[in-house]
């Protein structure tokens, strides 16, 4: 006996491999997606009766391939002059299925499918939307809801993005090692973008927040394909460790709760455990990269039972390492927060002072600066910084968070 939920999960998990293989056969994304859709419909009819196949992906590829070939033959009959080249290509595709079982093919199929969503001409949100449609198989309606836009607008966006990758040409040749590494890096960046779409959704448990779960699923998939890649371990660990804090990041009113004030009993210990295990695995390779370093920082937070147990010295050192790999004023700002815990607020203020020209329009810069000034007792300057932060807040929750600082300031000012 199999239930529909199991079939659903089997279809979802087989999708990247099956659509990836069908794309390789048919060399056309729409045909591959249609063929997979056909195979899914047949699975929904056949599996409950005949039981699930031992290898759902292989079943779907075989049935999808036959469905795609049938479709092409039907279309060929309707046209006066059948395209010989297309037909002979399709006959070629009927070579034994054993070919598919080749591990390298399977990896390249899935990687190709993920990689075509990362076309550099596509803006970040379109890459993410396309991946959700093509790789994850979310419906346009689900994606539209996650991005808080109308269904037809999202449909258009996805159609345009697909047209763009079709005209750019899907890379079918087997990638060399350098090219493969490049593709893996592009896919990792796309997965991180997808995660951040969900992460920035705040405390809500809606379609958008679920994007973080989907990003973790894709990261685990990428890691299964590239089990020995420390940066993919780092990426997966980073997502797990950040997502573990999701339930504690916002209070009942939807207001931001800072790390130091979070109820750590709400942190998901299972996700933290998996994240810590992956950080350990990655470190063994001694090939640090930005994802690994960020994961190591998140791991230090995850390991601290109480805020005062946090190893801020180590965190400051890790941010310094991250600055060397990825110089950015935002990373320096984060390092300054760690430095304020070890060397005090003045040291941190000295560190961020040179960043002002570049971060003057950045909400967090003024928020951090205000908090440091407040620690030093410079209330008027702190208030000015907080007011600048509120003016630059990206979400109501960010503005409300700073406003609470200001309220406390007022209160202290009155009682002192």
């Amino acid at each position: 006996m199999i239930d529909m939920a199991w079939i659903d999960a089997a279809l979802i998990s087989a999708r990247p491999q099956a659509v990836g293989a069908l794309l390789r056969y048919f060399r056309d994304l729409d045909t591959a997606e249609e063929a997979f859709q056909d195979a899914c419909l047949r699975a929904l009819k056949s599996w409950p009766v005949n039981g699930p196949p031992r290898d759902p992906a292989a079943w779907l590829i075989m049935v999808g391939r036959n469905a795609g070939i049938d479709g092409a033959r039907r279309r060929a009959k309707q046209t006066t002059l059948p395209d010989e080249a297309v037909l002979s290509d399709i006959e070629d595709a009927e070579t034994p299925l054993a070919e598919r079982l080749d591990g390298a093919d399977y990896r390249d199929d899935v990687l190709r499918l993920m990689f075509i969503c990362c076309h550099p001409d596509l803006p970040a949100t379109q890459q993410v939307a396309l991946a959700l449609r093509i790789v994850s198989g979310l419906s346009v309606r689900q994606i539209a809801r996650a991005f808080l836009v109308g269904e037809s607008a999202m449909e258009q966006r996805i159609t345009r993005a697909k047209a763009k990758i079709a005209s750019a040409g899907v890379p079918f040749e087997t990638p060399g090692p350098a090219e493969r590494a490049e593709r893996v890096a592009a896919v990792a960046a796309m997965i991180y973008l997808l995660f951040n779409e969900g992460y920035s959704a705040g405390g809500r448990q809606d379609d958008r927040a679920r994007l973080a779960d989907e990003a973790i699923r894709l990261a685990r998939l990428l890691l299964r394909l590239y089990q020995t890649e420390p940066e993919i371990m780092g990426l997966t660990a980073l997502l797990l460790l950040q997502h573990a804090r999701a339930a504690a990041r916002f209070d009942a009113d939807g207001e931001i709760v800072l790390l130091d004030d979070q109820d750590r009993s709400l942190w998901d210990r299972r996700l933290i455990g998996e994240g810590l295990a992956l950080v350990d695995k990655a470190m063994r390779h001694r090939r640090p990269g930005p994802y690994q370093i960020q994961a190591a920082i998140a791991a230090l937070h995850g390991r601290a039972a109480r805020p005062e147990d946090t190893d801020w010295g180590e965190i400051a050192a890790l941010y310094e390492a991250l600055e060397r790999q990825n110089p950015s004023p935002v990373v320096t700002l984060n390092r300054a927060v760690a430095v304020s815990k070890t060397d005090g607020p003045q040291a941190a203020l000295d560190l961020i002072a040179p960043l002002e020209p570049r971060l003057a329009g950045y909400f967090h810069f003024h928020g951090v600066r205000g908090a440091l000034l407040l620690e030093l007792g410079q209330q008027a300057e702190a208030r000015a910084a907080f007011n600048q932060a509120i003016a630059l807040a990206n979400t109501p929750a960010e503005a409300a968070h700073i406003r609470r600082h200001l309220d406390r300031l007022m209160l202290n000012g009155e009682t002192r």
Partner: protein
Amino acid sequence: MLYAILCYNAEDVVMSWSREEDDAVMARLNLTHERLTAEGKLGPSLRLMPTTAATTLIKSQDLVIDGPYAETKEQLLGFYILDISGLDEGLEIARELGRANPGGAYELRPLRLFLPGAPLT
């Protein structure tokens, strides 16, 4: 007689369960777990993290590799230790668990040695 039931399932399918589906499967399994525990038949049981979190030491060369030892179609995802009358009862329990958690396979394997060790949490 002490038996282990080793739980094999397609990890990518299990990892694709929504949180609700995972909770629903665990709730169904828990009915059997609770009954077996009350009957004094179920000892330690556990669920493993994904194979991506695994590391393997090849002893002969002291070689450390990322991932599980065996690359299988279905992965070892957990196990139960049971004190039961024999294979027939074991198969009956495995079928009951299978109705709550379809897909994959249960391997029934008698225990040669059982050391409960320290009580871990």
